[in-house]
C-alpha cells in the first residue's frame, strides 16, 4: 500500500526526530546560530500549543504561555544541562506555565464568585477542562471513529497520544516522561495507551488505517 512509508518517516532510525532537532537547535543557538531555533519554533509550536491546551488553558492565555515558553528556552539556553533533553524541558516548562495560568485564572474567578448572585448551588464554572472537542469539524468517517475511540481512553492516555501524534514516534518516551507517564512495559516503544487505542479501533470494525 502506498503511504505506509510516509506515515513512518522516522521509525527506521535513519532520520532525526523532533527531539534530536531540538537538541541541535539549542547547541547551535549557544554557538550564536539562531536559524535552527527558528525552524524548531515553527515545528514544535503545535506540540507546545496542545500541551498547554490539554491543561485547560483558554486560547488567549495559551497563546501567551507558548510564547513565554520559547522565551524561557532562550533565557535558559546556557543553563540547560542536557541538550538531548531539551524537548522534554520545553514540554515540562510549558506544562508548568499552563498550570500557573490555570491557577491565576481560578484565583481571578474566585474573586468574582463574591458577587451576590453566585451561590454554592450555582458555582462559577471553572475553565479547568477544554470545551468538549468538536468532532463536527472531522469530515472523514475514519477521523471521527478515531476521535470517538480516543475519548474512550483514560484522560492521560488521550493527552499522551494527542501529543505523541504531533512529534516523531521515537520521541514517545520524551513526551511520556514529560507528562509524567512512564513508558510501561520495558522494550515497548508503543506503550499501553496506543495499544489500548488500537484495541478499541479494532472493535469498531475492519478499517485499514494505513
Amino acid at each position: 500500500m502506498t503511504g505506509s512509508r510516509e506515515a513512518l518517516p522516522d521509525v527506521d532510525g535513519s532520520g532525526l526526530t523532533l527531539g534530536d532537532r531540538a537538541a541541535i537547535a539549542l547547541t547551535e543557538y549557544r554557538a550564536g546560530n539562531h536559524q535552527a531555533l527558528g525552524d524548531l519554533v515553527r515545528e514544535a509550536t503545535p506540540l507546545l500549543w496542545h500541551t498547554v491546551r490539554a491543561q485547560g488553558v483558554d486560547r488567549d492565555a495559551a497563546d501567551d504561555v507558548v510564547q513565554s515558553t520559547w522565551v524561557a528556552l532562550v533565557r535558559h539556553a546556557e543553563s540547560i544541562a542536557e541538550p538531548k533533553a531539551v524537548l522534554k524541558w520545553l514540554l515540562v516548562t510549558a506544562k508548568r506555565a499552563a498550570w500557573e495560568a490555570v491557577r491565576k485564572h481560578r484565583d481571578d474567578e474566585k474573586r468574582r464568585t463574591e458577587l451576590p448572585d453566585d451561590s454554592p448551588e450555582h458555582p462559577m464554572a471553572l475553565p479547568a477542562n477544554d470545551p468538549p472537542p468538536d468532532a463536527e469539524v472531522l469530515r472523514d468517517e475514519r477521523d471521527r471513529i478515531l476521535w470517538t475511540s480516543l475519548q474512550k481512553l483514560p484522560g492521560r492516555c488521550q493527552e499522551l497520544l494527542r501529543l505523541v501524534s504531533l512529534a516523531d514516534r521515537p520521541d514517545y518516551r520524551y513526551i511520556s516522561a514529560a507528562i509524567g507517564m512512564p513508558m510501561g512495559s520495558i522494550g515497548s516503544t508503543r506503550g499501553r495507551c496506543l495499544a489500548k487505542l488500537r484495541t478499541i479501533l479494532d472493535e469498531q470494525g475492519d478499517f485499514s488505517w494505513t
Partner: protein
Amino acid sequence: MDLTPEPNQDDEAVGHLSFDPKGVLDAEDGAVLTRLARAVGAVDPVPEGLVERSLFAITLAGLEADMMEAVYLDAPLAGVRGAAAAARADDAAPAEAKTITFTHDSLTVMITLSPSAGGRVRIDGWAAPAAGLDVELHRPGVDVVTTASDEDGRFAFDSVERGRASLVVRRTDGGGGAVSTPIIEL
C-alpha cells in the same frame, strides 16, 4: 534497529498480525498517529501567527532587556491576560485611542496609541521618573527605529505600521539596564 514490518502486499494481514500490545510501532500505529495528528490540528487549530509571535518574542528575549509589566488602567476586564491578548481583543475598535501603562521597578512608561493617516498608528509615550531615554521600536522583520525622549520623558513615533511591536527603553546616560514592554498589537 528496524523492527518495523515491511509494508506487505497483504496489508490487512500484516497490520493485524503485527498488532502486539507490547510490541514496537507497526505501520498501522504510524498511520493511526498521523491521522490523529491531523484530527488534533483540525479540532483545536494553532492560532494564526503564534509561530511569528513566538519568533519575535525570542528575538526580544535575546536583547536581554528586563520585561516590564503591563497595567491596564482603562481596561480592567482584560484581567490576567497578556498585553498581546488584550490588544487583540481591542481590534474591534481600532479608531479609538488606547492607553497602556507598563511598569518595571521604579520606571513607568505610559503609551497612547491613536489612529494616524493611512491606517497607521501614532504612539505617544511618557516615562516617569523623567529622564533622558532612548526608546527603540522593535517589530518583526523590520529594522529597529530609535527616538529620544525630551527631558520630561516624553517621546513619540508619528506613524507606525500596524502589527506587533515592542518598545525597548534605555537611559541615555547608560544608567540601569534596558527594559522592554511585552509585545503589543498596534
